[in-house]
């Protein structure tokens, strides 16, 4: 399967400086808005958030004025000879793996999220509705922050499962870590070492995921006296 993609032009290097400036300015805007919001009681007016859009566009506009060439150009797949050239190539194995894992893990995560939402007591929804929250606001501001406490630990498990299930790619002939390791074992005979390398790489990936999720979890914890 072929999809249109982008590729950098020779002018990309000289564009890099503008992209960095734009990113830094976004960070500065975020900090400033936070400072202003911390001082005032009222929420910021909506137009203040326009800064997020206006400032980067201004910087990029300066870039367009000084640089004649754009940084990226579209790379469309073109039929030349017997096959397509250019574009992003999506192999059927990769597409099948991606689709299968997304659909499969999605079903498990759906159950985890349902458990979290149902664990929030009914009175919370009713209180939110009687305070005049709309359904979406109640979900976003009242239900979800409470539900996340129940959701995060099992959700982490599902993410780890997802990473480990990707090794099933071997079943449809996609050369992932496991199948490469199989090849290495065949060629060198160093079974134990390769298995240790596999375990260490999965372990480091998993530990990193659960570290991030645990940090997130402690931020979402029930704040009590």
């Amino acid at each position, binding site marked *: 399967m072929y999809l249109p993609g982008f590729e950098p032009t020779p002018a990309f290097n000289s564009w890099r400086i503008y992209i960095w400036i734009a990113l830094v300015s976004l960070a500065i805007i975020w900090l400033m808005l936070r400072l202003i919001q911390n001082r005032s009681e009222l929420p910021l007016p909506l137009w203040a958030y326009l800064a997020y859009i206006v400032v980067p566009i201004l910087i990029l506009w300066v870039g367009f004025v000084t640089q004649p060439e754009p940084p990226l150009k579209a790379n469309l797949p073109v039929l030349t000879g017997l096959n397509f050239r250019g574009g992003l190539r999506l192999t059927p194995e990769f597409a099948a793996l991606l689709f299968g894992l997304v659909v499969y893990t999605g079903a498990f995560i759906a*159950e985890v999220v349902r*458990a979290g939402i149902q*664990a929030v007591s009914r009175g919370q929804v009713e209180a939110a509705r009687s305070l005049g929250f709309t359904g979406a606001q109640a979900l976003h501001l009242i239900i979800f922050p409470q539900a996340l406490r*129940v959701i995060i630990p099992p959700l982490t498990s599902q993410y780890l499962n997802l990473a480990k299930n990707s090794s099933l790619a071997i079943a449809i002939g996609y050369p992932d870590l496991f199948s490469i390791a199989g090849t290495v074992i065949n060629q060198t005979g160093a079974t134990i070492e390769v298995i240790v390398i596999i375990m260490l790489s999965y372990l480091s990936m998993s*530990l990193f995921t659960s570290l991030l999720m645990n940090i997130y979890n402690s931020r979402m914890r029930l704040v009590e*006296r």
Partner: protein
Amino acid sequence: MTAIEMQPPRLILGPVAWLRKNLFSTWYNVLLTFLALGLLYTLLRPAVQWSLTEARWGVISANLTLFMVGQYPRDQLWRVWLSIYLLGALLGLSWGIWKHAARGFALIALGAGLAFAVIGLLLNSNVWINWLLSVGILLGFYALGRILPARGRSILTLAWLLYFPLVILLIAGSRFIPFLSPVPTNIWGGLLLTLMITIIANVVSLPLGILLALGRRSKLPVVRYFSIGYIELMRGVPLVTVLFMAYLLVPLFLPLGVRPPDAVIRAIVGFILFEAAYQAENVRGGLQAVGRGQYEAAQALGLSGPLTMSFIILPQALRAVIPAIFNSFISLFKDTSLVAIIGLFDILRIGRSVLAQSEWLGTHREVFLFAFFIYWGFNMAFTYGSRRMEEAMGVGRR
């Protein structure tokens, strides 16, 4: 004055009204309904046609016993049937005594038994008599349960608790009972092996997981760091490697002359250790949802630590995470197919060896469809159980 509590009247729709409300309410819903019907028709028609005309279902009927119990000795099959009859009797009795709470399960079992009897008849297998007999036993014990006095309740709970050890004893046998000759676990196979691993591993790993979750939230540093380390390590490595460890390395670590336990037992221990880490994280999610006020209220009422945990905190925590716990149950049930790589014959591996018989070459679709329906059917029953449990505990309504 006591308040009279009244349930809101329940609206029950007839089938025609249900159709009109849910499928044909607006013009675009009518359109979508017909589109979906057309899609289903185009997708399913070839499959149904194939399964009725071309498919060689003989591969299933010829190997049915193999699929169900593997190499379990054929003259000992009455033990497996006896455990099914016992299950039927217990289900019937619970239906009679607990009425509504067990009705769904009993009806599912009844339907499944009848369906198996019909399938047995269609496949020219003589098991239909046994299935009809178990359905009869279920109905008979239902009638018995209706006329039994209310004192039967506590006996029934006890019977359910005794059922699983009894089944393990029946299937595995023992040297000390003359008519139950021991059956080594390495010739267990098929659906029997899959179900045994699933049930034992799930039943043992949940309490272990609860302990680990409590340990992770404990204030004692040694307990806490041990729990964190165990959980993160076990969740961090693939199940395959845990099974390999249990299979290859345990015999190496045992002292000389000590016979290592059977492969099935090692596999079950591997599953328990792996699953406990996952259940621990599920339970931790539930524990996080219980506010500190609950602990304080329990203390103010004079409850000790263990009493607070078992009567105040855990019931609320576990109730909140029923779907996540059943997620793990279902995952484990499906993961049992991995025991094939350590040389055990679960239902999928048996399917593959059946395909290697020369007379049944090229019947992949039949065999894997059969396995698909077996896994799907059992998972439907699991999900139904979890839904009933949620309803009984009022999840999402309180």
